[in-house]
């Protein structure tokens, strides 16, 4: 499993150590995601993966699971790499 998935999963479980989190699990259904934690998630992802999450990507579905967040990071980092190469 790539580092992206592990890092995201570890960030969430470090904050909520009493949960067991599958990568495809809907974190919003677990009941602990509020606007504070959402902001922490965004900041964590931006700092850890050296990216910026634009407004159009701030959608619930992009943060619904570890898989979704890892996909988002992959898209953003991939787009940045492509832009840098051009």
């Amino acid at each position, binding site marked *: 499993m790539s580092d992206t998935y592990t890092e995201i999963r570890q960030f969430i479980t470090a904050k909520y150590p009493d949960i067991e989190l599958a990568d495809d699990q809907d974190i919003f259904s677990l009941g602990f995601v509020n*606007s*504070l934690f959402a*902001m922490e998630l965004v900041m964590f992802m931006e700092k850890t993966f050296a990216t910026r999450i634009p407004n159009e990507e*701030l*959608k*619930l579905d992009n943060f619904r699971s570890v898989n979704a967040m890892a996909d988002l990071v992959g898209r953003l980092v991939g787009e940045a790499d492509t832009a840098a190469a051009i």
Partner: protein
Amino acid sequence: MSSTAIGVSRPPVPDLATVREFVDSEVIPNAEEWDRTERLPRSIVDRVGELGLWAPFVPAEDGGAGLDMVTLGKIHEEVGRGCSGLRSMLTVHTMVSWAVWRRGSAAQHAELLPRLISGETFGVFCLSEPDNGSDATATGTVAVEDGGDWVINGHKKWITGGQVADVMMVFLRTGPGMSAFLVPADAPGVTITPVPNMLGTRSSMIAEIVFDDVRVPDSAMLGPRGWAAGMVMTGALDMGRYSVACGSVGIIQASLDACVAYTSTRAVADGKLRDLQLIRRKITDLVTNVRAARLLCEEAGRLKESGDPATIMATWVAKYFASTSAVAAANDAVQIHGANGCSQDYPAARLYRDSKIMEIIEGSTELQQTFIAGEAYREAA
């Protein structure tokens, strides 16, 4: 102002020594009068702009001074040391400027950011309402889509700087979710009414604002709507909380300064007030608490500067400690000054009233206790 090679003016980069001198010579001598008249003169607002204090954290590549968050905090501390009303204006303008910079569209950047940086446009934060404060998502102000525009109806209250607002960042409901809009203060249907005789920060020109069929274009929406709009609000509140925490350090410092000065000259039998052990105990508490509060703010600022999500909880802790310590410090300042502490001849009474406001705004003490304790239990689970 310095100029770039292509002749575009860059905002000044504020330095702490200049800010301290500004506070000592232009703010402190006038703070009591501003508190009495419940007004900040245009001249001091312009001076804040000349010194580049309105939004210096905006990065240089976006037209700002690129000031780091720790120094920003120290500037807010210094201004808070002089006048909490003026520092409150910095707080709300910082919140709006941050939100526009971080989540604004290209058009909003172009139209507003330079003017927010210079202070030519003064921004205010409109979240609280007559019937909800801490429960931020229970807003009754709504916007309904109408032919590509939005029509806003609602009522906001306790809006710092509202009497002199140019642009208002208004949080409201758009359907089941929340959104933020940038609304001109002079838009048809906006009614701004001063709220006089507040307990503290009386010079911050607080207002209540009624929106009666206020029509704004879709382009006035700031950031995403719905779930993600909460992030605009949370991010702006985080900046506001940081500013209030640092401003509270300023109140503690002002209380300490006032008490050291007063007790060094006030005569009592066989000496001065400063010679009494119980006075020295209070002074010790003031010294210790101002240093501790400052360190907590510095930590929050460092984490904010590096984009570390730990800044959010660090800012909660800093605000909790600094604001409650400010109340204790100002209480001691009044007590030490005795009857003089209850008059307008000394700053203690104003510090006492201003400090209480710090426990209420940008997250009440009780809300802080709920979240901070919750974090401790989560970590231990």
